[in-house]
């Protein structure tokens, strides 16, 4: 059986792609580097959009990345059901690309926040969170200046009613509405969150937990079972 192939996208200014690729390999999947300037998804089974400061966060976080050539391929593929996970800047890009509703804005405190954050998994019916138990509490690192999730009242109500809130903060660090740390699209295949599962997969590097592994074992299980 050939290994599940998870694409990891690199934009100019992406920082977390190597950690993401390492986490993908750690659970036994194959990490496939994807380059922002290529019109090529290389036939991957899923895509990880890592964090960083793509295109320098110019204009708005993710606003320029959304128009990268690779996104011309990724947007229709995601709409057709390809599992996509965006963390931090990846989440911002998914919102700017309108693959996820709402937007990420400046932290209410105006401070850049870098700390270990308690979270609760609210939704396990996604290809990226099915290895968790509903309501499971985990700890992941967060590191962002613009992570305050906002959406209009109707969108928020819809997210809550449809079970699209995937991860919630326990102790809101940035002023996100409804303590939202991560959401999924209506179909469930696209997930975005501000915390960093790829930084919490090995104790050796001083991670606060290995809770991030669940996101990677989830996608592997999902691809192998498919």
């Amino acid at each position: 059986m050939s290994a599940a192939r998870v694409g990891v996208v690199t934009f100019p200014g992406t920082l977390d792609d190597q950690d993401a690729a390492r986490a993908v390999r750690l659970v036994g999947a194959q990490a496939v580097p994807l380059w922002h300037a290529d019109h090529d998804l290389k036939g991957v089974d899923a895509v990880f959009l890592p964090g960083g400061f793509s295109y320098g966060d110019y204009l708005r976080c993710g606003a320029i990345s959304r128009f990268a050539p690779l996104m011309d391929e990724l947007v229709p593929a995601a709409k057709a059901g390809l599992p996509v996970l965006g963390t931090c800047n990846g989440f911002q890009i998914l919102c700017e690309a309108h693959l996820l509703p709402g937007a990420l804005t400046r932290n209410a405190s105006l401070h850049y926040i870098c700390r270990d954050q308690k979270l609760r998994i609210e939704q396990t019916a996604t290809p990226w969170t099915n290895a968790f138990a509903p309501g499971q509490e985990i700890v992941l690192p967060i590191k962002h200046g613009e992570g305050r999730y906002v959406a209009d009242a109707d969108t928020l109500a819809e997210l809550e009613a449809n079970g699209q809130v995937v991860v919630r903060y326990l102790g809101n660090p940035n002023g996100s509405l409804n303590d939202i740390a991560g959401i999924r699209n209506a179909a469930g295949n696209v997930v975005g969150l501000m915390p960093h599962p790829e930084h919490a997969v090995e104790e050796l590097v001083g991670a606060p937990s290995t809770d991030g592994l669940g996101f990677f074992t989830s996608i592997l299980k999902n691809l192998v079972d498919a």
Partner: protein
Amino acid sequence: MARVIVDVMLKPEILDPQGQAIARALPRLGFSGVSAVRQGKRFEVELDGPADEAALAEVRKMAETLLANTVIEDYSVRVEG
């Protein structure tokens, strides 16, 4: 040649902590009588030709596509001069 101004502001219902920080700083600097400040972005778009209706429609499209995120921001377009 014409210059078109695009102003982009957070929608009124979106919290603007930067504007709030500025409003809080003003009294410390001796400026009184300010009840609120909201911060936005101004783009000066230089056109090769005149700012006719077709060109303005194009600028509005630019604003909609890139300059503003209409999920959280409103924009307005006007010709300078």
